[in-house]
């Protein structure tokens, strides 16, 4: 089986689907000739031509809106937003339009649209190339929001997203692009879009997280392991809908819960996971539900000491886990 980077797995998912289904197309800034500013779509325009891998104007509402129109007319578009930070001009098309089309037409129309964007920091991207804004979309019924944490899931979830009949926001951690490698089957496969995955089994603490933080959590769990604390790491994978049953199962079994994320905590994915645990696992809790995330500042700054102060790394996570373990 091939070992691919996270980025290559994403590219392969799109490429395989475009070969299998000629309705699939990609539209966004620099996706064509340049192959994307990160190189995700490299080679695809050469293979599929400039109408199926198309460079858009610098206009995010246009990017999303054109893909909505193309999807109305039978295509399966993948809109690429260059950085999640720049998705905001497109939010009207995403929230007012894409999310509501099936509901408002009483199921006469549906909107099979994928919107991909790289998010997250730790790459000296500063305030406008490092944000984690996924939570705002998790609030919107009619959207799916997914974040793969490894190359296998990246390909399988992207294929599933492209085949899904509803709008899927597919966020890729930009620091994972070239730093994560893993085995990815060459054959056709999908990964379900509504399931969390237990990455590491444990008994004492369940850590719920997503994206690059999954890897950080596994590293922290291994440190605690040496001292006899057994930490379960659950990769949420689907942020909307959250895998309620999966979350409850792990939380009840472990009794102690930590929700970890890169984004700041207020009104975030961690808030929703905590609410679910509080509602459905109260009788099984052996400690308060804890969270760890970025500080309440507008975004991650450029200077390294400031960026490091923002990021949750394995040391900070370990400290938090230990305090919870000792409770």
């Amino acid at each position, binding site marked *: 089986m091939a070992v691919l980077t996270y980025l290559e797995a994403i590219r392969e998912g799109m490429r395989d689907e475009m070969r299998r289904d000629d309705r699939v*197309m990609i539209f966004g800034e620099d996706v064509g000739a340049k192959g994307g500013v990160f190189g995700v779509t490299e080679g695809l325009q050469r293979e599929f031509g400039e*109408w*199926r891998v198309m460079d*858009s*104007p610098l*206009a995010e*509402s*246009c990017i999303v*809106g*054109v*893909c*909505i*129109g*193309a*999807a*109305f*007319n*039978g*295509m399966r*578009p993948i809109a690429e937003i260059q950085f999640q930070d720049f998705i905001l*001009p497109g939010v*009207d*098309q995403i929230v*007012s*339009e894409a999310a*509501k*089309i*099936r*509901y*408002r*037409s*009483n*199921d*006469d*129309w*549906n909107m099979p649209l994928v919107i991909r964007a790289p998010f997250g920091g730790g790459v000296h991207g500063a305030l406008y190339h490092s944000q984690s804004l996924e939570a705002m979309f998790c609030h919107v*019924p*009619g959207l*799916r929001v997914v974040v793969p944490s490894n190359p296998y899931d990246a390909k399988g979830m992207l294929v599933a997203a492209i085949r*899904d*009949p*509803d709008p899927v926001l597919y966020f890729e951690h930009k620091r994972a692009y070239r730093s994560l490698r893993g085995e990815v089957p060459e054959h056709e496969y999908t990964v379900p879009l509504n399931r969390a995955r237990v990455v590491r089994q444990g008994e004492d603490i369940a850590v719920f997280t997503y994206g690059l933080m999954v890897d950080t959590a596994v590293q922290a769990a291994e440190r605690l392991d040496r001292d006899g604390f057994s930490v379960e790491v659950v990769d949420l994978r689907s942020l909307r809908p959250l895998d309620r049953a999966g979350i409850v199962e792990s939380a009840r079994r472990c009794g102690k819960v930590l929700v970890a994320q890169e984004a700041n905590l207020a009104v975030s994915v961690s808030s929703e996971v905590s609410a679910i645990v509080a509602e459905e696992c109260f009788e099984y809790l052996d400690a308060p539900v804890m969270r760890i995330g970025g500080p309440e500042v507008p975004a991650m700054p450029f200077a390294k000491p400031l960026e490091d102060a923002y990021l949750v790394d394995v040391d900070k996570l370990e400290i938090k886990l230990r305090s919870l373990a000792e409770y």
Partner: protein
Amino acid sequence: MVVANRDVRAVTGIDAGTLRAMYRHMLRARLLDERIWVLNRQGVVRFWVSGMGQEAIQVALGMHVRPGIDWVAPYYRDLALSLVLGMTPRDQLLAALAKADDPNTGGRQMPAHFSSRRLNIISSGSVVATQLIHAAGIALASRIRGEDAVTVVTTGEGATSEGDFHEALNFAAIHHLAVVFVVQDNGLAISVPTSRQMPTPDVADRAAGYGIPGVVVDGTDPVASYQRCGEAIARARAGRGPTLIDAKVPRLTSHSSDDDQRRYRTEEALETDRQHDCIGRYARRLAEMGVLSAKAADAVRAELVAEIDLATAEAEAAPDPAPESVHLHVLGDA
């Protein structure tokens, strides 16, 4: 006395049958519109937004569209357009009464949010101008598949200040997509006049910035509208790119049933608009051309009233949506 068809065609460029058909469509839309206002004032229709005065341009445009083949992205005043394309008075009354069988939205949206997958009328929401970009995307898909379908999209002049209007024209123009943008300029965005909406007198002036033709037309003249729309659609179908049609129309009613335009418009302005009512003027013109006598026009009116009466009764008797259905159709699996 029946005037020879070729004489009518020589004068208008349109045959008599088409001229009569357009009158019928316009009058049907007007009568339906009036009926819904009545129901609103009765308290039965909770909200209505009207297209009265804009029937001519809408019907003329719709006559050139092949329903189910070409594509239409309408806006909320397009009652007449929706009927020309094949929706019925019963459909729109079901919508006005928010009934479960409303084909547009199942009663989920306010009325006048036209939608029909069968007829290639895309679903629209209440945010203005978003559909302009959708139209460009629809036309892109047609281009990718090598089809000769044309996409027509309509909007009011107020929405041409939105960023989406500019992003849509920009993109469609770059790639010479088969889109016809039809702006129905009725001079007001609720209470804000066009002088506060754009720096130049005509929406058509905006087209030059995108390198596409901007065509001003009297939107109350079905003949002129038919010709301009036909040209624009032929242009698009021939691969020569988009056109912006700026159709001037009056606004005979307030913005919506929640608005009273007498509070911000003078009686003179309102009277001027009434003078431009397309229905009466067109009827007189058809009579003068010998295409449709007054007697024949009355017969048409009577038929249409009967049709609308029947549709009203059916719609009023139809069931409301079930409360538990509020949870359905958020995503595909439920």
